[in-house]
């Protein structure tokens, strides 16, 4: 039973560039949420995708966008990267949307130079 998988594991970008992160949910799950975790802090909710639509969004600018595909996998896109975007980006999956317990992937470590 495959868990949540994310790619890539690590990524280095420079300011102003764009990045795409990918996530495959746990088998049987249909909902994907994305979180940003800075060092020493708790995960910060970016948005949740359910039924291929963005259902809820946290306090993040429009530079952060996403997509969910018919097979429930998801992408997180960040444009015009800033130094402050350096963080661990976590994908979590659940079933049925809403506030169900989250199953997290190992994350993508994004470093901005």
């Amino acid at each position, binding site marked *: 039973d495959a868990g949540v998988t994310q790619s890539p594991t690590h990524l280095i970008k420079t300011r102003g560039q764009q990045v795409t992160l990918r996530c495959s949910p746990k088998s049987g799950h249909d*909902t994907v*949420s994305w*979180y940003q975790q800075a060092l020493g*802090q*708790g*995960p*910060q*909710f970016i948005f*949740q995708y*359910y039924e291929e639509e963005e*259902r*809820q*969004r*946290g306090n993040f600018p429009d530079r952060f966008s996403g997509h969910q595909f018919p097979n429930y996998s998801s992408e997180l896109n960040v444009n015009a990267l800033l130094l402050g975007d350096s963080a661990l980006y*976590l994908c*979590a999956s659940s079933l049925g*949307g*809403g*506030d169900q*317990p*989250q*199953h*997290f*992937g*190992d*994350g993508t470590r994004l470093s901005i130079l």
Partner: protein
Amino acid sequence: GQQVMQIPQYQHVQEGEDFTTYCNSSTTLSNIQWYKQRPGGHPVFLIQLVKSGEVKKQKRLTFQFGEAKKNSSLHITATQTTDVGTYFCAAPSGWGKLQFGAGTQVVVTP
């Protein structure tokens, strides 16, 4: 907006001792969830509490939801080195939006 606060931020514990970490919300919650993140790892779901005054146990871990559904606690008895990590509480803040506290980082001294 809703605030979720955890205390203490750090907890140094001797192996074998007990400790408690607390989570407080500025608003009444529909439910609260607890997660554990090992160093270098990802958050792992531990438990969800829904009912006022609810108490749930997982081996040496005891979770409690306050009567007013605005606070929660995690109590660990006879701490072991395997308990090392950061413990987060997380509360719904709108449908599908989970708000995490800053976490309690636990260090265990053998």
